[in-house]
């Protein structure tokens, strides 16, 4: 069993028009830039994209938006530095937005991966974001009921990957990726280094291979933050 794929385009070829896709990363940390750009080369349209943010500058998710591939963003914070690709289209009514509190977003994705269709959280109780959602009291405190999030495809970035798809992550680049790997029908990871079976200590595996369908090696991956600071643009 070897889940290695020969190219980035193989990995993203599973994404079809209208799909929901999860993309790992928090800002530039953990963003699978090469996978995203390979997806842009194939230009599927009408996508719902789940990520913490809504793209910055003119690379990554922002470039997907500029190429009119994204119909809806589900995210917690679409307003970080230079989010203009999203902002312009949002204010023009050309892209939908579902804003979700960050912890609720993480938990909804985990729930999707863990087979938990709904759960209760205190976050957003009493606020505009809780409107229309069921509420209930537990031990004297009010909670809001939230539903799982799932996706057709997840695109993530790992550090080490072995042929079975076992993954580690580099520092804080871990963020949403282990959760998204669980919550998508198919998960594709770019890894900075492909290692042999047994090279990852079983106690250090963060994402067990059962959650990974394919991996592509991208040595020395580009860092979104650096690209944005350099004014890069894709394509």
């Amino acid at each position, binding site marked *: 069993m070897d889940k290695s794929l020969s190219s980035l385009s193989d990995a993203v070829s599973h994404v079809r028009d209208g799909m929901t896709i999860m993309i790992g990363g928090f800002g530039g940390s953990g963003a699978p830039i090469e996978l995203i750009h390979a997806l842009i080369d194939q230009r599927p349209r009408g996508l719902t994209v789940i990520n913490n943010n809504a793209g910055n500058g003119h690379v990554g998710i922002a470039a997907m938006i500029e190429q009119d591939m994204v119909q809806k963003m589900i995210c917690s914070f679409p307003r970080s530095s230079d989010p203009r690709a999203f902002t312009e289209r949002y204010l023009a009514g050309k892209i939908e937005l579902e804003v979700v509190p960050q912890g609720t977003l993480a938990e909804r994705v985990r729930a999707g991966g*863990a*087979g938990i269709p709904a759960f209760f959280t205190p976050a957003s109780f009493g606020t505009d974001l809780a409107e229309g959602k069921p509420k209930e009291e537990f031990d004297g405190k009010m909670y809001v009921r939230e539903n799982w999030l799932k996706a057709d495809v997840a695109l993530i970035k790992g550090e080490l990957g072995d042929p079975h798809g076992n993954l580690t992550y580099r520092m804080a680049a871990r963020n949403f990726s282990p959760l998204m790997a669980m919550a998508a029908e198919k998960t594709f990871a770019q890894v900075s280094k492909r290692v042999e079976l047994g090279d990852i200590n*079983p106690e250090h595996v963060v994402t*067990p*291979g*059962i959650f990974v369908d394919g991996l592509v090696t991208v040595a020395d991956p580009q860092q979104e933050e650096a690209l944005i600071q350099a004014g890069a643009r894709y394509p």
Partner: protein
Amino acid sequence: MIDITDIKLSNAQIAWRAAQDLQDGSYVNLGIGFPEMVAQFQPEGRTVTYHTENGVLGFGEAPPKGEEDWDLINAGKKAVTLKPGTAFFHHADSFAMVRGGHLDLAILGTYQVAQNGDIANWSTGKGGVPAVGGAMDLVHGAKQIAVITDHVTKKGDPKLVETCTMPLTGLGCVTRVYSSLAVVDVTEKGFVLRDKVAAISLEDLQALTGAELHIEGDVADLACPDV
């Protein structure tokens, strides 16, 4: 009652037959006890990754006696071994794999299985100490839920039934039954017979089964080597 002593498959043979359907590249949970035997008969050339509820994926076979490491066990609390590619994780992640539908197959033992896929495999309902373990999670977990079982109880009562009379583990879960006499799929229309041992007639097999056995196309011979 038909005497099936000489024609029924042994447990090892049932496990062997179930093992023939293991898919290359699949993730499989084997219930504790008898189902664990399936791994011994995994066909050559296929990679099957076994999951155990207590947080191990891709473990290897039992170690030689005396070389057990009791921190490296399966859900049946038997010692297993490491293999290249093994991963450890905590119990919530382990059951996220189960409940989230990430396993391709779980193979379980059972007391009864009904024609609608209901399964009763956790309690005889006779008092004593109730104990469920992971059974109620596993029956909802995998894409396919197979059971391996004698076709009838020691007293000769059918274990494949119209409606379970014993305490249920889960509703409408089971997709395939490997018994000591037959391989049966659970479908929309009920039990569909796929294989039967050659030495039993359809009529006799039906007589030992508590619900109608439907036939769709050919019924294959359930022939197993002496394992």
